[in-house]
Structures are given as C-alpha cells and as structure tokens.
C-alpha cells in the first residue's frame, strides 16, 4: 500500500519534470485543434481522424460544451479529457449554485488548470495527457475569450492558438495571418489554419462556433465543405494573381 504513495512526477537533476514533458509529447501526438477569437464570436476546430466505417460518428464529439456560454476542445488522451470535462461541468453548476452567477471563462480555465497541476504534485497519479482550448463569453460583459491549458497546469489567454499535431505550423500560420475578424471571417480563419495540416474536406474536420446570442453551434459537414470550397477558390485566385502581374508592364 505504501508503495503507491510515492510521487510519479519528481524533479530530474537538471530541473525537468519528465512526466509532464512526456504528457506534452502525448498532446503532440493527439489530433490537431485550433481556436480563434473574433470580435463577437469564438471558433473551435478539431481534426477528425477518418472514422471507421462501422463507427457511429455522432458519438465521437470532440468539441463539448461545459455550460451555456463555455465550450472546450482538446488534444491528447481523450479518456483523460472525459474526466476533466466532467469535473469542469460539475464546477460550472456548483459555482452557479453557490454564488448564483455563471462562471467566467477565466474562472473555469483556472479551475481546469489547477486540476491538471494537482496531478503533477500528488502521490500515485500521473498528469493528464491533454491540452485544452477553452472558449466562451463573459456572462455579463459579453466579451469573448480563448484560453489554453496544458498538462503542467499553466494557462493563458490567446487571440488564436493551436494544439495537438502540427500545432507549430498552425500557430505560425495564425501569427502570419491573424487579424481582428468577426462572424464568418473568424470561422474561415480557423478552418484555413486547420487546412494547413489536415486533409481538406468537411469529413476530416469538426468546427463549432459560439456567439453570445446563440451559444454553441456545431457546423454541419455541408457548411464546412462550402467554406472549404470558398477558401480553395480564394487560394487559387491568389495563385493566379501571383502569376499574372509579370505579364502586365
């Protein structure tokens, strides 16, 4: 019994927490996820690995709502995600019950990050192998937010971010192409970032948008295909424009 009290996450001589770093590796192997914050909208996009023919894809939901005004997407160990998401949902209702106020995005992010940190400093447990992207609106000011947490328990707010597979390429793309957007433009930006690393097509990505008025809405495959087609057309037009100018004196 005593053997299971020993901490799994201990410091290495050069100050590393290898278990946490290995957890980050697990995140890097997880599916790509992207989040973008607009002026009046927040968008989450997740890569959908090809679903097996016999699998009912409706039961594999990668973007979940934690409360009426908060949604979460993650990359990494999905089973660990279930545990965190459940705790977060309970906390959202518990907060409403005790202080009669919905949680702010920062509060629930801090809660989830706190939970992730606890599991890096407890006996007999391993860290959660996932990073989360949390989006939502402040219940009173209506200001949209995007936050990210990781297995070490750190969290911060972002204008746009990506996690999971090839997150570096997506983040580079976002850094180059981010500008203040709203509405459909924000959705397009998120999908464009995802398409950098994912095979194009509505079948391979799951996208959800959240607005203050309508809450979380998952986009249908047809809608995603339409936006992807728009993006491809714009890309083709840009390519053509690049080739054309030299001819004009």
């Amino acid at each position, binding site marked *: 019994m005593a053997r299971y009290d020993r901490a799994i996450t201990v410091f290495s001589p050069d100050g590393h927490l290898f278990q946490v770093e290995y957890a980050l590796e697990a995140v890097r192997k997880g599916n790509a996820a992207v989040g973008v914050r607009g002026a009046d909208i927040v968008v989450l996009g997740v890569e959908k690995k090809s679903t097996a023919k016999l699998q009912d894809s409706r039961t594999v*939901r990668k973007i979940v*709502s*934690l*409360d009426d005004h908060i949604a979460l997407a993650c990359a990494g160990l999905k089973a660990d995600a279930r545990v965190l998401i*459940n705790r977060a*949902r*309970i906390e*959202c*209702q*518990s907060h*409403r*019950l005790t202080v009669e106020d919905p949680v702010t995005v920062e509060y629930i992010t801090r809660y989830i990050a706190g939970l992730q940190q606890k599991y890096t400093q407890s006996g007999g447990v391993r860290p959660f192998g996932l990073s989360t992207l949390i989006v939502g609106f402040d219940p009173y000011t209506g200001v949209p937010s995007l936050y990210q947490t990781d297995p070490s328990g750190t969290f911060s707010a972002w204008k746009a971010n990506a996690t999971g597979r090839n997150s570096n390429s997506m983040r580079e793309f976002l850094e180059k192409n981010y500008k203040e957007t709203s509405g459909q433009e924000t959705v397009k930006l998120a999908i464009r970032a995802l398409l950098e690393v994912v095979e194009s097509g509505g079948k391979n990505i799951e996208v959800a948008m959240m607005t203050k008025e309508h809450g979380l809405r998952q986009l249908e495959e047809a809608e995603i295909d339409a936006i992807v087609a728009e993006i491809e057309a714009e890309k083709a037009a840009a390519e053509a424009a690049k080739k054309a100018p030299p001819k004009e004196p």
Partner: protein
Amino acid sequence: MECVFGLVGNGFAIVAADTSAVHSILVHKSNEDKIMILDSHKLIAASGESGDRVQFTEYIQKNVALYQFRNGIPLTTAAAANFTRGELATALRKNPYFVNILLAGYDKETGPSLYYIDYIATLHKVDKGAFGYGSYFSLAMMDRHYHSGMTVEEAIDLVDKCIMEIRSRLVVAPPNFVIKIVDKDGAREYAWRESVKDAEVASA
C-alpha cells in the same frame, strides 16, 4: 398557510402558488416567487420551510442542468420527478427537507404531466394536485369543475375559482398568487393575481 395547486390540461400543465413570505405573524414580502423554472420545459412549485424550499429546488435545478450537459439531452419530467423524490428520500431519515413540490413538465413524446411530491418523499403522477390549507378548498373546487383536456381559458377560469375560494374561506388567506404554465413552447409565467400591491413609496 402556503397554497400551491396545479392541473393538467390539453397539451399544457398549469401551476399556481401564493406569493407571501411569512415569518410567524409578520409578512416579509407578498411577491415571493415560489414557482421555479427548472429547465426549458419544467416548473417546480414548492411550499414549506423557506430556507429548505430555495436550497432544495436550486440544488435540483443545478443537477438537472448538469445532466443535460453530461448527456446532451434534457431529463424527462418523470425522470426529474423521480430524481427529486430520491433526494428527498435520502435526506429523510438524516436531515429532512420540509418542502412540498408540484412538478409540472412537458415532454415531446408524452405531453404534459404533473407530479405530486410531498416532504416525506411520496411521489404520485396526478391530473390535479394541491398542498397546504388551501388544498381543502382548491382540491374540492377542482374535483367539481375539472375534466381532462381543458383549454387554457377553462383552466385559468378554474384556477381563478380556486383562488377566489381560498381568499374568501381561508382565515389567513394569502393575498397574491402567481400562475405559471408549461406547454410545447416551454415554461413561462402566465399571470399574477394581486389583491394587495406593495404601496409605492412617496417621493420627498
């Protein structure tokens, strides 16, 4: 002296509750809303110990919301009623809640329903029900005039008859009532029946 009663009509369920918050001989306020909107299509009309009433109904409301987030679909009225009864039953022999509840709801598949849940965790699915001293009068009135498949107008007329009976025959009758309705379009406030309005404070 708290009066709560309700009935099921054609495609809707209606509940009415008095709105006085009383402490011994003092009336704290006469516009206390005792009918909570549990979720989009459910109403909980509760009477009893005020602290327990608010504590218990809010607890049920948050757990019903949690179920919906966890499972992606809302609880049916029957499931919510059984959950409520279960919580009352569990607390009964430790730290009982003194709250009587009429739970009204509308489900797409089964239509409107009304559940009678008393403080010792009795659960009955009913067409009409009532709690409190007012029940002596409202139940008798409903027994006389109720028939299944009433329209909203007929039901409101019956509710008004019950309120009139309570006002005229109950010794310390509550002056004001709130009426709420739930149907396919959701749960919402229907009307207030006020015979005593809080006096406006004269400006300096």
